[in-house]
């Protein structure tokens, strides 16, 4: 990516994101991608006056992650989507659709984590 990418840790992401917000950055969105069978990349895209900047949070998919919905309330949609598609879990996410944002019971696999059954669905 041509824009700056800042690596953040799960412990620090809340703080860092808040600093971005205080510095006047707009949260454009969140993207998720599997790095390998365990690790997930969560990218936070920020914009200020048409320039982009990204955070990269790399963590095991199954570990609970902190939600930034308390900082940017609009992040709830993106985080819920990540929960649906990757079965990651965000803590203190409001509102938490509990993996029902898109998915019905009929989908028993985790869409983007191939070969993993959605055991933890229905939490």
């Amino acid at each position, binding site marked *: 990516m041509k824009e700056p990418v800042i690596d953040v840790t799960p412990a620090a992401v809340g703080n860092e994101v808040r600093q971005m917000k205080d510095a006047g950055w707009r949260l454009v969105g969140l993207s998720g991608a599997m790095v390998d069978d365990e690790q997930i990349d969560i990218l936070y895209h920020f914009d200020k006056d048409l320039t982009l900047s990204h955070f990269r949070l790399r963590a095991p998919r199954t570990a609970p992650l902190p939600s930034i919905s308390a900082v940017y309330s609009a992040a709830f949609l993106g985080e819920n989507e990540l929960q649906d598609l990757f079965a990651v879990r965000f803590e203190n996410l409001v509102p938490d659709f509990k993996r029902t944002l*898109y*998915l*019905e019971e*009929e*989908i028993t*696999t985790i*869409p983007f984590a191939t070969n993993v059954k959605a055991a933890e669905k229905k939490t």
Partner: protein
Amino acid sequence: MFDALVTRARVKSPWVLHFDCGSCNGCDIETLACLTPMYDIERFGMINVGNPKHADVLLVTGTVNHRNKKVLQALYEEMPDPKVVIAIGACGLSGGVFRDAYNVVGGVDRVIPVDVYVPGCPARPEAIIDGVVAALGKLRQKAVPTAAGAGGNGRFHPRMKATGSS
């Protein structure tokens, strides 16, 4: 005589319910365009009623997915007989370009019986009009299921012989 009148009225007054069953909007806007001055399907007595209880024709666009299939089913059941279903666009017909996506069940006919299929991506308004005309032929044929089917009842329905279309 009476039968003929009723049949004629049915064919002349198809009220449609349009359900966007997860379409990309392409087919929807073309369906909606049918209502507008250029195509004006009200010429055929068609009204977009938006309420299954008033509808005779169900227009379905889009791919069926696991969530909306329940809605589709419910809407179909809430329509009074006789009714016809038109599936519109590659998505409604088969799932189209998304056929193998994980949340795609497939075409409309996976959930409810479809009378007419209108291909296209999106199906252009003329194609939809053709589809409606074909559906009216079906409607003309539809004898009311007196015994069979959940909702069948015949008090107001003159029994009709399936006289074949047009």
